[in-house]
């Protein structure tokens, strides 16, 4: 996969609210990247934080306002610059015929390009989106338009099934044969999904998050412990080996 650790100024072309706390920011260039790779965004004097690629051509990201940096990104105006280092890390690869994608919160973002790639290969794609409440469900229409089969779970029941998205996943697995589970979202969700995948011996590709500093495999701050998923090798770095970790039950390699 292509990597670059050099910052490039990218101009904001459009910035569009997806919901009260979330915006999609589109930039004036393309990057060479796979779904699930990430980038580091730098705002001079403010800091630098990791974001997943939403689309690569044009380069765009989906940002949820959770603190000072993600807030500042959302207040940018058209023509303003964000300095971007990336793409970085290793993303998802389409595998199988019948696949399940599980997005928790902004975890839906990197799954969108993946779903698109899978649909282009005529794969059958089921998408489960989890969120706290109906207004936080992200990208539902976008997945619909790709002809994915979309299921939603909200903790307060305001949309779709009430409860955790993992329950919906269990439902799907009872009904369907799934070749690969893809997921991106909070660590707790991924840990639960890893358990489920282990139980059913289904191949999976999950995108893990960790606190990133260099984003380039050298500072060692983004190690993800096998506590989160016993299949993770010891010393696994989210920015360098991941963010996507792949588990193959019958891996010959």
């Amino acid at each position: 996969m292509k990597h670059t650790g050099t910052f490039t100024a990218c101009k904001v072309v459009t910035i569009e609210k997806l919901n009260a706390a979330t915006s999609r920011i589109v930039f004036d260039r393309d990057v060479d990247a796979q779904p699930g790779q990430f980038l580091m965004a730098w705002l001079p004097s403010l800091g630098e934080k990791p974001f997943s690629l939403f689309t690569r051509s044009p380069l765009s990201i989906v940002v949820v306002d959770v603190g000072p940096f993600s807030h500042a990104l959302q207040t940018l105006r058209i023509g303003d610059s964000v300095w971007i280092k990336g793409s970085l890390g290793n993303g998802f690869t389409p595998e199988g015929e019948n696949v399940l994608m599980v997005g928790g919160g902004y975890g839906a973002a990197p799954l969108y390009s993946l779903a698109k790639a899978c649909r282009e290969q005529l794969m059958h794609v089921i998408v489960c989106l989890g969120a706290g409440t109906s207004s936080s469900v992200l990208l539902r229409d976008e997945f619909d338009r790709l002809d994915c089969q979309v299921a939603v779970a909200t903790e307060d029941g305001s949309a779709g099934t009430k409860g955790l998205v993992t329950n919906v996943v269990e439902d799907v697995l009872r009904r369907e044969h799934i070749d690969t589970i893809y997921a991106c979202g909070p660590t707790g969700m991924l840990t639960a999904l890893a358990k489920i995948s282990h139980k059913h011996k289904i191949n999976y590709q999950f995108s893990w998050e960790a606190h990133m500093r260099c984003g380039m495999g050298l500072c060692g701050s983004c190690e993800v412990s096998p506590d989160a998923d016993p299949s993770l090798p010891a010393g696994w770095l989210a920015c360098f080996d991941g963010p996507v970790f792949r588990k193959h039950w019958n891996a010959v390699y």
Partner: protein
Amino acid sequence: MPLEPTLACQLNNIHLRNPLVLASGAMGVSPTLLMRVARSGAGAVTAKSCGPQPREGHPNPVMAEWAHGLINAIGLSNPGVDEEVAQLIEAQTQLTTIDVPLFASIFAGSAQEFGEVAAVISAAHPALIEVNISCPNVHDDFGLPFAADAKSAAEVVRSVKNAVGTIPVAVKLAPNVPDIGRIAQAVVAEGADVITAINTMPGMLIDADAQQAVLSNRSGGISGPALKPIALRCVAEIARSVDVPIIGTGGVITGRDAVEMLMAGASAVGVGSAFWYRGAEAFALILDEMKEFMIDHNIRDIGQLIGKAL
């Protein structure tokens, strides 16, 4: 069929299955990461430098690639020596099972404090204690690096040697000095057993569009390809000035780079930034390329290369 060349070598009294040593601070910041790098082929692994107190390090951005190398100002993030020694004991237990020596690395704010940190870290029984007197990224907290001056460098070594008993001591030197050979002589006179050269070279990236320095710390340390000729020259100067083994470090990305470092007078070769340029298998790739070079040039023992270009 040519015989498989021998990469095993000695560094002071330490046996290494090959001369490649993980450079301090590059990836190996936890027991699991040290073990990972050891498994990937390293002859020895150096832990991240630790100091008397925990340090968070600098805010982001802390690292960037530029056209000819990397630059970083991580800022010596570390958990402090009391936590670190526990981690090194854990690392040591694991590394022993695969026979890869562990090198500790320490820094401090005064000669006396260096001795104190060294004493604590000795409890982990590292094969070597590397004394980092040359980090360019903590200027504001610690003033000029000790490697700036022969006299203060020597004081640090004296203090550390007194504190660690028989554990061999390496001193890590900085490239931004007028006469690195003289500093090497001063620390060897105080009993330094090994010299590690070099730490990163101070530098700064500016983004003209942002009208700002790229790193939050503004300046940082240059590593990777651009550093290689600077490191080769420092290693050669040191090799001509003192008689202790050198861990030649800086810009080694390929097997050929490693061979050049040995030819400059190094007995072992530090590798850090290569992970970025070559990926997770960096050590294995470099080792394969070294073997290929040795076979092509009919060299049976890696020791034959040391100092060849002096």
